[in-house]
């Protein structure tokens, strides 16, 4: 059972470069989410998608874009990375039913120099 996979596990990136973080789930969940976790700030929602073909902005969307071409994949793109985007990024998904708890991937640690 894979659940949610994220790639890469970690990455060091030069400022100004473009980077796409990949996220794939095999649970056929309708909703997917991207969070960043920073020390002392907890988990902050960047973008979300309630169903394939739709996306929405979270709390901290600036500098990031997402797409949801199909149910399983939800890539997060940094068009021109800046040092303040150094963080641990978590992808999550939920089925939209009941409590709608979210299931998280293992995270991507990104360092922008």
């Amino acid at each position, binding site marked *: 059972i894979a659940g949610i996979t994220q790639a890469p596990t970690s990455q060091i990136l030069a400022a100004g470069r473009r980077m796409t973080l990949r996220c794939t789930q095999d649970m056929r969940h309708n909703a997917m989410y991207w969070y960043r976790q920073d020390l*002392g700030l*907890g988990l902050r929602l960047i973008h979300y998608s309630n169903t394939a073909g739709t996306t*929405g902005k*979270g709390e901290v969307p600036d500098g990031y874009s997402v797409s949801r071409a199909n149910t399983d994949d939800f890539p997060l793109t940094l068009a021109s990375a800046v040092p303040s985007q150094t963080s641990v990024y*978590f992808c999550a998904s939920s089925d939209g039913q009941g409590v709608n708890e979210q299931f998280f991937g*293992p995270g991507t640690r990104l360092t922008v120099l």
Partner: protein
Amino acid sequence: DQQVKQNSPSLSVQEGRISILNCDYTNSMFDYFLWYKKYPAEGPTFLISISSIKDKNEDGRFTVFLNKSAKHLSLHIVPSQPGDSAVYFCAARGKNSGYSTLTFGKGTMLLVSP
């Protein structure tokens, strides 16, 4: 403005004793509250939830209490075990255009010593 607050960054407890993690919220429209547990280098995992119409939910060693009038919830772990050492996030579910999203607190790091 923080809608979900965990005011204690850390908590230390001895094995076998009770751990109490607290969470406050400001938005009365939240309809579910969830607790997540996170180990280093792993993603958060769902632990337990409570509906806003309940005041208690229990699952084994874990109990969540909700005081809606005070906009306060707490997670009790009894008895605490060293394997419970992790960061605990409180999250609240709200509606956004008919779909639900979670707002997380900053987390409390729990250390259970043998």
